[in-house]
């Protein structure tokens, strides 16, 4: 494994060198919170942050994205025929992404990149992106990544892991793409691998010790879907929910979308937009019949999808990386950690069954 020492004095210069070769995206402060945005020339990512309020999923899955264009003008050749649009899929770098969020891309890839169908919009953007992670040293109290399949120094999904040592970053090169990135930045000072490894290991242990909350997921697979679905605890869980949809919008692992046409005069676009299982319109039929007509059905869908349907479909953990966004931002304090434990323990103890 190769490690590079990046003196922070050379940070801005390196990014400057990268600017022509990659579109750079990084955290930036927007009013009160951080978001990921495209950085202009000379603009530095603000790495003094815990995590962004919305997840960086929009880098490959924009909240609103044009799919096709068409003309409705009968005098034009090819009118009413949908056409693909040229998009900018030149290399882009996501600088300072947290390891949990990087892991979410691998998770979501299962949905967009299937043996039968490939979602070209997500996949092209994903393939154009290089992931420069920033290890976490001070997690939120709501983070539970270590029991959700990743962790503050988790490397899966990253091309490069940056570890902040105060005056410098140690960059751990994880893929050839990461190596290429480092080269084009001009950061060349190799670190002694044994020393670097040791420093990172110690920091990792400390960071993991700071993760204060956990979920248990070991029993989810064994539970009967229909019994969990019919359980009586859903009314209590959903009681305070106002179906605002915040939890699904900020979540890095929520991928649902709607498809809509938009017309202006004689030309039109087919778009896709984030959608949410929290909304009644998500499932209503043209006839007015709605199989998920009540709030409790919709709240149940969100948790059953993340903690049971996904678990059964892919047999590789829960559909959640433990970033804690939905917990921090829910206006009525609905907490996926509690729901996960209730589901995981359901049926094994009578106290938790109701």
């Amino acid at each position: 494994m190769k490690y590079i020492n990046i003196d922070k004095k050379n940070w801005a210069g390196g990014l400057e060198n990268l600017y022509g070769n990659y579109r750079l995206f990084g955290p930036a402060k927007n009013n009160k919170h951080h978001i990921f945005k495209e950085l202009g020339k000379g603009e530095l990512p603000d790495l003094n942050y815990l995590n962004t309020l919305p997840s960086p999923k929009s880098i490959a899955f924009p909240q609103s994205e044009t799919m096709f264009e068409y003309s409705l003008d009968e005098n034009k050749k090819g009118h009413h025929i949908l056409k693909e649009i040229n998009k900018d899929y030149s290399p882009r770098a996501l600088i300072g992404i947290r390891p949990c969020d990087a892991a979410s891309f691998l998770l979501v890839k299962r949905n967009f990149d299937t043996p039968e169908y490939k979602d070209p919009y997500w996949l092209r953007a994903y393939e154009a992106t290089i992931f420069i992670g920033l290890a976490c040293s001070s997690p939120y109290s709501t983070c539970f990544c270590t029991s959700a399949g990743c962790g503050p120094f988790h490397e899966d999904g990253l091309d490069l892991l940056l570890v902040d040592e105060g005056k410098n970053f140690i960059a751990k090169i994880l893929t050839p793409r990461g190596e290429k990135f480092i080269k084009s930045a001009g950061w060349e000072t190799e670190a002694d691998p044994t020393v670097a490894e040791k420093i990172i290991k110690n920091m990792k242990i400390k960071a993991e010790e700071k993760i204060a909350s956990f979920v248990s997921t070991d029993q989810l697979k064994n539970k009967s879907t229909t019994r969990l679905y019919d359980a009586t605890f859903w009314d209590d869980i959903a009681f305070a929910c106002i179906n605002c949809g915040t939890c699904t919008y900020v979540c890095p692992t929520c991928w649902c979308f709607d498809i809509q046409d938009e017309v202006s005069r004689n030309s039109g676009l087919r778009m896709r937009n984030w959608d949410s299982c929290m909304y009644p319109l998500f499932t209503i039929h043209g006839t007015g019949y709605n199989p998920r007509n009540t709030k409790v059905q919709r709240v149940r869908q969100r948790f059953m999808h993340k903690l049971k349907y996904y678990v059964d479909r892919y047999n590789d953990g829960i559909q959640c990386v433990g970033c804690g966004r939905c917990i921090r931002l829910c206006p009525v304090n609905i907490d996926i950690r509690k729901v996960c434990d209730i589901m995981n323990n359901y049926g094994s103890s009578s106290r938790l069954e109701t």
Partner: protein
Amino acid sequence: MQNPYLPYPVRIDEIITETEDKNLKTFKLVFLNPDDEEKFSYMPGQFAELSVAGKGEVPIGIASSPTEKGYLKFTVNKVGLVTTCLHSMKPGDIIGVRGPLGRHLWDTLKGKNVVIIGGGFAFTTLRSSIVYMLDPLNRMNFKDINAIYGSRSPGMLLYRDELAVWETRDDINMHITVDGTDDPDWKYNVGFVPTITEQKAPPGNSDTYALICGPPIMIKFTQPVLDKLGYAHDHIIMSLEMRMKCGIGICGRCNIGKEYVCKDGPIFTLAELDNMPKEY
């Protein structure tokens, strides 16, 4: 990378008004690029997204059979935005077709007795199945074929000319029925689909499969009849409807439990449905 959201352009070749309330029209569509027809290789029971530029897409069962070459047929009920726009279109207009979508179970049905039970306008994909099985090249692959099809009144039956022909054939037992009629010349059955099923359907056995499509109320009352006739739940095949967008299991909209109705369905055996949440 092939874009699975891009519809094939098609031209509306013919529009047939099917029912007396004029709410159901059959659209015969022809591919603008002949190569696309080959790519759109389908089996009865599958569906497609019909795409109307400026309005959107709707999932519609394929009513034509793969044995009918040169065109596709869809029968569309006028419901909301897209379907109303379709109903206002005319031959020559350009729309799009995306698919074929969903799975089919024809490998299971090969060499078996097939009982088709349909109600209302859900008969569309069952028409496709019948035309497919009756094709001279396919008929020997199936044993007895029974079909029970009912609607409210004679004027609400789809594909009336074809039904009349099937009634006269001896390689299919056709049982047409209506809920009621004051037509003195009505030659066929009167009664609800579950009642006629009880009277006419052969008893269930390991060699006999029932395919059901219809409104929820019909399915609800037909199921106990099939139980009584001895049909095992893995020998009852049904088609489900959910609101859909992508049709390819990606947009997350149409799940029942861990299954996406668009991709893992829309047809399921009753045995499969027994293990899924009752959320449809």
